[in-house]
């Protein structure tokens, strides 16, 4: 089966990563400003306004678009940073805004009706009624689906909604309650939803104890990795805890999503775009993963088998999964 190529939406946390994504064949690069208005608010990451202006020029000259994520929830009583982010992104010429907060969606619709609005995965909209509401109330033209749906469920959903869908194709997994997870806030007082950061670096510590690397988040020990065992991120959802006398992963194992093997099925399900996770990752990750998915997306569009991508070295815990797309677990 051949068809229109899926739009390849790729991350960038720095200008260098943006250029790497564009050069590797991204259709779109998504990014955020250097503050708490986006869900990857890590130290030294993200874009100043001049960097966005330069990035837009670089991308547009090469036929690539830029989406700006303003996808955290505005702080009560202080919406100004979020409003400024929307205004600046729209005025600089971003091709779309990725938003989650309904107040911000309303602001963007009223102030910048000509700029496309996409619904962030942070809004956690995964049923026809919710998605139709976002479309009717705020003119949302695309929804980024949470990583909880099977391919069959996505196909059924696409048949019932008036907007495009974008799904995650590769990268870090989430506890599958995007926009509603409070684990990081419980451990550190800071959350991805409000502060744009899950497991903030200020609360993360690694320690070498004998032959083990111990990772801690706040006052919680997240994991202990013996020498040689691949490591994972220091998030509570991927912690290895002792229960019933056995140490194990209670929520999720450290592993990365790789949906490359189900690209034809996602195309057949009516998905419009694929999102690669990893704005916090380096240029080498961006260049390698984007180039691999460019090959995969083009192969799928031609109706050819998707080639093995060989991205195992880029995955968390050096393991990959198709996640909920091919749900064989409970």
């Amino acid at each position, binding site marked *: 089966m051949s068809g229109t190529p899926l739009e390849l939406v790729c991350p960038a946390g720095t200008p260098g990563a943006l250029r790497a994504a564009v050069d590797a064949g991204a259709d779109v690069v998504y990014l955020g400003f250097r503050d708490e208005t986006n869900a990857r608010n890590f130290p030294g990451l993200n874009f100043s306004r001049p960097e966005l202006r330069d990035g837009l020029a670089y991308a547009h000259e090469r036929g690539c678009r830029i989406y700006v994520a303003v996808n955290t929830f505005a702080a009560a009583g202080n919406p100004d940073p979020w409003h400024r982010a929307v205004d600046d992104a729209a005025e600089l010429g971003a091709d779309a805004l990725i938003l989650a907060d309904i107040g911000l969606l309303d602001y963007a619709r009223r102030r910048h009706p000509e700029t496309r609005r996409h619904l962030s995965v942070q809004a956690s909209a995964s049923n026809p009624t919710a998605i139709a509401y976002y479309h009717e109330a705020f003119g949302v033209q695309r929804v980024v689906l949470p990583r909880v749906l099977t391919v069959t469920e996505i196909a059924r959903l696409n048949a019932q909604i008036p907007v495009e869908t974008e799904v995650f194709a590769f990268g870090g997994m989430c506890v599958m309650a995007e926009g509603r997870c409070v684990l990081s806030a419980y451990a550190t007082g800071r959350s991805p939803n409000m502060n744009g950061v899950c497991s903030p670096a200020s609360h993360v510590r690694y320690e070498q104890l004998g032959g083990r690397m111990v990772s801690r988040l706040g006052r919680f020990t997240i994991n202990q990795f013996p020498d040689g065992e691949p490591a994972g991120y220091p998030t509570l959802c991927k912690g290895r805890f002792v229960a019933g006398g056995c140490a194990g992963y209670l929520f999720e194992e450290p592993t990365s999503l790789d949906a490359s093997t189900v690209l034809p099925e996602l195309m057949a399900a009516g998905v419009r775009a694929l999102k690669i996770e990893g704005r916090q990752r380096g240029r*080498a990750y961006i260049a390698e993963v984007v180039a691999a998915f460019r090959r995969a997306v083009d192969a799928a569009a031609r109706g050819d088998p998707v080639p093995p991508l060989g991205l195992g070295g880029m995955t968390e815990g050096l393991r990959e999964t198709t996640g909920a797309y091919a749900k064989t677990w409970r």
Partner: protein
Amino acid sequence: MTNEPNRGTPSLSPVLLAGFALRPLPLVLLQPALDLAMSLMRRRHSDVFERLDALENASFLIDPVDLPFCFTLRLGPAAPRLWAVGTGGDMESPSAVLRGPLLVLIRLLEGRMDGDAAFFSRDLAVEGDMEAVLTLRNAVDSGGIDLAEDLLSLFGPMNGPARRALGVAEALFARAERDLESVRAAFVASVEGRCDAQTARLRDLEDDLADLRTRMPRANAAGKRAAKPGAARL
């Protein structure tokens, strides 16, 4: 952070051998080269240092585990400086420690290797202030640093011959890496053979154990049925 860090066991590599050769060298002799390198970095990669402005007073112990010395990097209001120090924790309370083979650290500096991937594979170990580590990582990753090109920029009109010399040096290094890998493989071949045999034996035992576990419930159930009165007639 400990005074006697666990540096692990470095792999056999040209860097490791070069480190042995450098061991008698007083570290102070490296200082002019390190000062020149930092000056060059600041001139050619000012954007990196702009991103590092967020770190007002941070210090890093950068520990190439295959060399007999470490580097310290201090950032702050004054010009950033890099020093060579011994491996025994000469630096007092650095903000953070980055530890890995020299080539891994160079590839990270040049953005040719992803920091998270290096961490996942355990090629890179980090300790201390993770905000400082991430700021440093993100700043250098974005900078487009290319050590060879930066070095060649010093040669001005002699750039051409210097580039050729560098090419020869890179080829020699690659050859030495391959040769040392052959040496390593020859040394460990017999051990690896025994390990393979033991792995195969272990796999057989695991299969046998799994088979026994599958049979046990059935055997137990059959035993219970047989123990029931009248079961023999069934």
